Every structure is written in C-alpha cells, then in structure tokens.
C-alpha cells in the first residue's frame, strides 16, 4: 500500500507541464496594436488534484492613435480556469505614451482550479477593456468599468503632479524631499469580501463616525453596519447632495479600527445612484467584509470620489488628504508612488525631469 501512495506522490510531482496558449484579441480600430507577445515562463501543470496555470507574459504594444495615452486596461480570461462570473484585469495608469511610441505591459497571474476529466492545453485570452487619453477621452468596451477607474487615477495623478510642481522652487526643495521620503508602505490588512455575512454569531449594529470633508459635493448624514467579531456586513448610509450638479456615482471610504487601536482603510463602497441637487438618498449593500484575526472596535466613513451626471469627477484634494484623520490612512495615489520610486532610485534631479514631462 505504501509503495502505491509514494508512487502517486512522485507521479503528481513529476506531472508534465504544458505551455498555455495566449490569444490577444484587440478590436480592428483599436488605438493600440500588438508588436510582440512573449509568453516565456508561462506553464500549466497538474498539481495534486488541481490544475495550476502560471501566466507570465510580456506584451509589446504601440500607440497607433494621435493622442497621448494615459492608461490602458486589459481583461484576462482563461476558459479552463474561469470562475463563474469572474474577471481579472491588468491596468497600467500614469502612462505618458506619445503617438507612435511603443510600450510594454506585463501579465503575471497564477490560476488554480480542481482537475476535471478531458482537460486539454489551457488557453488564455486577453482583451482590451479600455484606453484613456490625455484629454480624458476614452476608447474601449468598458465592460469592467475601466473608464471610471482610469479617469480617477489620472485625475489623482494630475493633482499630485501639480502639488509637487509647486514645491519645485529652490526654497521648497527640502519640502519636496520630505514629501517623497514620507512615502512609506502602509500596513496591509488581510481583507475578504463576499456577498453576504457567514458568521452566525450574534451581531450588533454599529454607527459609523462620519468624516465630512469641507469641499465634498456629497455629505454623509448617517451610517450603520452589522458587526460580529471580525466581520462587518450590510453597510447602510444616508447621503445628501450639496452640489448643484446631479450625481450618478459615488464612492465611500470605509475605515476600521482594530483591537490594538490601529486604523486602516478597509474598503471602498461604490454606489450608482441618481442624486439631484440637494436631494437625500440611501446607499445600501448586502456585502460583508471579514478581517481574519481582527476584532472590529469602531468604524469611520468619508466620501472619497463622486462622478457627476455630466461625466466630470470630484476627488479628494491634497488639502483633504492632509486631514489628520486621513493622512495616515489613505494611501498615496499610483502616480505619487511612481514619483516617489523615481526619487528614491535616481534622486531629485530625475524627479524634477519627470515632472517637467507633463
């Protein structure tokens, strides 16, 4: 019996790996074209009772449009490992790709699922979900809401570049240096999100402490969630529009304080709504957040982004981010992290040169 088990283990470990096929599917009128695809290192391996696909692909692309590209989002899907209703995306924000220039994107994913009879060579399909240009125009099917995501990232990038450019005077060089060095990796708490609560322990209704920022176009006037141990569910907020423009989408930042007194940004709560000027409404969701190993002590909430009916956006200002209650909780934008990385690796002059490119 033991020799059969050992044989099984050896066979499982020595199972032959396959190279998954990679298909890039771009529309005919796409503003980006594929120059080359390098799937080197990608492989699919049966492991125990599971199929493991390691996808490491490097895409070389070219901007075939007449505008500068600021961001690209690709949807990645594998027929063999697709979970029901699941999509994966790879996005690159803070780009500055001139017309005709080439750029690269990397897809690194590990996908696993249980083995099934008749499994063949897995294939991975990459589709374009959207491209954002420097005039904030957008191209793409936007099936995964990439337009909103890329636009918010670009607006944050402009806000931060403008802020840092204002620090470029000789007198404030030290201020710029300290801003760059301020960038530290924020604590990353393990968070699980699911459609409904799973913990049947007795829960309690907890009120959110509301942080209404001075220039926010939407106020939070009330908020509660059900809390049980390490799980919070069924958030509900009362909102009131302070804007003269109708609001069609907003995002609420959800802050949690744990048993040690540490606060962290637990999640964002996006909500589509139709909010006329001055109107009040409710934002309700059935989802649940779980923080393994954490006991939720209290919660705060603030409006982090708003999309108006005319397609314009409101995002947190640098002044709002300086609020002591947000400063150590809301992480830097992707652009601020990129600029900080340049400063740390190449110094102040490289950072100044980079800021002058925009």
């Amino acid at each position, binding site marked *: 019996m033991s020799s059969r088990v050992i044989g099984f283990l050896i066979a499982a470990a020595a199972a032959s790996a396959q190279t998954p096929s990679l298909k890039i599917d771009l529309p005919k009128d796409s503003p980006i074209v594929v120059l080359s695809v390098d799937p080197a290192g990608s492989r699919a391996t049966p492991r125990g009772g599971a199929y493991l696909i390691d996808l490491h692909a490097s895409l070389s692309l070219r901007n075939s449009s007449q505008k500068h590209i600021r961001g690209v989002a690709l949807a990645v899907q594998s027929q063999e490992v697709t979970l029901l209703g*699941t*999509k994966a995306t790879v996005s690159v924000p803070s780009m500055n790709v001139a017309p005709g220039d080439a750029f*690269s994107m990397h897809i690194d994913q590990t996908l696993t699922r249980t083995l099934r009879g008749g499994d063949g060579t897995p294939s991975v399909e990459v589709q374009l979900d959207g491209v954002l240009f420097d005039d904030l125009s957008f191209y793409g099917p936007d099936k995964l809401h990439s337009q909103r995501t890329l636009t918010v990232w670009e607006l944050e990038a402009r806000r931060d570049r403008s802020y840092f450019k204002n620090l470029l005077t000789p007198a404030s060089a030290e201020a710029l240096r300290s801003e760059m060095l301020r960038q530290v990796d924020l604590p*990353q708490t393990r968070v699980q*999100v699911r459609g409904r609560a799973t*913990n049947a322990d007795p829960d309690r209704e907890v009120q959110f402490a509301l942080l209404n920022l001075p220039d926010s176009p939407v106020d939070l006037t009330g908020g509660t969630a059900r809390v049980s141990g390490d799980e919070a569910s069924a958030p509900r907020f009362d909102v009131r529009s302070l804007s003269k423009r109708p609001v069609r989408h907003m995002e609420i930042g959800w802050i949690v304080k744990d048993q040690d007194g540490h606060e962290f940004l637990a999640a964002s*709560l*996006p909500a589509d709504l139709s909010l006329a000027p001055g109107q009040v409404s409710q934002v309700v969701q059935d989802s649940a957040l779980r923080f393994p190993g954490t006991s939720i002590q209290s919660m705060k909430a603030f409006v982090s982004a708003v999309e108006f009916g005319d397609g314009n956006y409101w995002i947190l200002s640098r002044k709002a981010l300086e609020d002591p209650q947000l400063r150590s909780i809301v992480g830097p934008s992707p652009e601020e992290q990129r600029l900080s990385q340049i400063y740390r690796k190449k110094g102040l002059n490289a950072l100044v040169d980079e800021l002058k490119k925009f």
Partner: protein
Amino acid sequence: MSRHAREIDLALYAAGDMSLWNRISVGLHTANCEQCKARVQAYRTDRERLKQDASELPAGLNWERLAAEMTANIRVGLAAGECVAPRGRKRVVAGWWPVAAVAGTVMMLSAAWWLNLPASDTQSISHAMRGLVHSRTVVADEQPVIEASSGGIKLSENGSELQVSQGGGARPKAISVSTEGSASARYIDSDTDQITITSVMNVQ
C-alpha cells in the same frame, strides 16, 4: 398429483398465488374435475366475501374502546420490552499488530491526501474545523470570496482559486477592496518604474 388436487393447491390456485407450472397443472385438472372445480369456486366466493367484510366495520363496534385497547396493548408490549435486560456484547480481543497496521495505513493515506489537496480545499477544511472548535455556525463558502492581503489577491469559489500575483514574488505596494466584490493590488516595476494594477472582480 393424486386423483383430486390437494386442498392447499386448490386454495392457492383460487388466490392466483402459484408458480406458472403448478398453475397450469392444477388448471388442467380442474377443467376436467367438477369436484375440484367446485372447491376452487368455493374458495373464490369466500375470498370475495372476506374482502367485503374487511372493508366494512362490524355493526355495533365501539371504535373508541377498540382504539384504547390497542393503545394499551402497545404500551404493555413496550413496558415488557423495557424489562428485558440488554444483552452483553461479545468482546473481541485483538492483538496490537493489526491495530498498528490500520493506524499506519490511515495516517499515510491522510498525509498523501492532505499533501495533494488544493490549497483552497485545505483552507476550507481548516476554516470549517476552526468554526467547529469555536462552536460557531459557519455558512458554507459556496459564494465567491475575494481576498486581498500582502501576498496579492485571490478569489475562491467552489474549490477553484484564482490568484493574481506579480512575477518574481514581488509584494504589492498597495491593496484595495471594493464592497461590490473586487480587489486590486498595485505593483511597481523595479526596472521601468511602471505601475501595474491587477484586479479580480466578481461581475455576477
């Protein structure tokens, strides 16, 4: 078969409760024997009468009293059953060698099974075990669960897993979760300083 068919065969024949060969044999006999044929007819008549009697309660029957007597009889029977002492079990004395062999085999199979189990299944079982230990009711994780941590993002559903991580074991510079059912991890390419944000979302 004797000159006349046996009474028991005639009764069974009348009830249609005979094997095929015997039914043919008795049928041939009764076709030529008026006496046996009359007996079969008598059995059939009695049978029909019994059926009719069984479908009707006897006149003057006090059903309430009958039900009470039946209940009392059942209780007496149960009480009598309680008086019977349980039978002692026969003890089987086995040597330690067979026990050790079985235990070793079970341990080996368990280890092999555990090592070959997908990580998602291992976590599900661990989660369920923890729930049992802490006496918590845990709803089965049939719904998709999206998780963000310093290791990247992962979606689990029905034993399948979708993990999104960066090549070379890079750790995300930032992670975020949306209550709509999505998670993102942000990476910086150390060579090009390019930011790449990978996301997994449940679009159901």
